[in-house]
């Protein structure tokens, strides 16, 4: 499974999306789409760390790195390479 798919699957199963019918697009801003609560933030960070075997530094924990599926993927490309 590609990184994009893995991340999409995670977000779809963990984020409470305001509109249930909505299909998540790769460049949708997840902070506008649903309610990003403290629990989702933790789950997302620990999912990324485990799934891609990296440790996120304080500097990495920047909203813009996590705002959409695409931004998470390009952040990971920067960290890990393609």
């Amino acid at each position, binding site marked *: 499974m590609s990184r994009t798919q893995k991340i999409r699957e995670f977000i779809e199963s963990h984020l409470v999306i305001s509109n249930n019918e909505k299909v998540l697009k790769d460049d949708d801003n997840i902070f506008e789409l649903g309610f990003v609560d403290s629990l989702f*933030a933790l789950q997302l960070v620990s999912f990324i760390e485990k799934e891609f075997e990296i440790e996120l530094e304080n500097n990495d924990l920047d909203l813009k790195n996590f705002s959409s599926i695409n931004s998470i993927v390009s952040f990971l490309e920067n960290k890990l390479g393609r």
Partner: protein
Amino acid sequence: MSGDTGDKKEIKCVVWDLDGTLWEGILLESNEVKLKPGIRQIIQTLDSRGILHSIASKSDYDDALAKIKEFKLEAFFLYPEISWNAKSTSIKRIQENLNIGLDTIMFIDDQPFERDEVQHEHPEVFCLDASQYRNLPDHPRLNPRFITEDSKKRRHLYLADMKRKKIEQEYEGPKQDFLMSLDMTLIISQAKEEDLKRAEELTVRTNQLNTTGVTYDFDELKRFLSSDDYRLFICELRDKYGSHGKIGLALVEITDKFWQLKLFLMSCRVLTYGVGTVFLSYILNEAKKAGMIVRSDFRDTGRNRMMYITFKFANFREIQSQTKGEILLENNLTKIQEFPPYIHVIIQ
């Protein structure tokens, strides 16, 4: 005010072995085991102080639980671990289920081997020889400074949580529907004098979801109430199963330009409901209405990364970082998460 984490923490949960510890004899050898003299009284005394109890025993689960029920003690033990696993594993599971620190757990066993095994795996756990059990009520780490309404009913709050978790596990369907079904209400208010004991207790007990780990005592908190330069917010969570009690606290210092969060914490018990972000959003909105921006003190205590993540995902950014893990965060209030549809927010 104290930021020292070197102090021995108050014990939140006492984990009991059964054979030779809670009762005399070995259950698998004889069904006629007897509770050690005075043990029921001790359990009730600690319970009334808000200290929880659990079990780590190597025995047969059904037999042991039947015996506990016969002694009418089953309601006192949360997430009992009765199996043939290593006790260090049992304690880890209890710790995860209760979501408390290992350094707030006391383990009591008559077998030196079991105590050593636990101590070796979890140096933070306080291990005690069962022969010492009569001294428990006088133990300094089992005597909290305050006993509040929240501490007296703590066990019942956890029992209700166990019920919620069970229902959540059995719930099939989208998470949103489950959260909706809980009918949650978050009640936010400015703290009053009668809240201050609980507020102090929260600063002492809360480690993971805590921005600075700084503790404030009753008198310090009381001074904040009468000062125009500070605001102290407290919040309570209720749902259809009852109240979770007062579970969040925020201390704001008001300056010319900023609302400076000196402390923001949420009880770990409500972590799974994500209400921290709701409480934070409320404060950000209030600051915005007052035409301010928000800054927050933050201190890396080695245990509060969860809170750092919560703040960063709420659009705080680091503007200053010092040695010793002290960080200054700022939020320009351009993006504030709205309240989610599944929580009703009441401002008092």
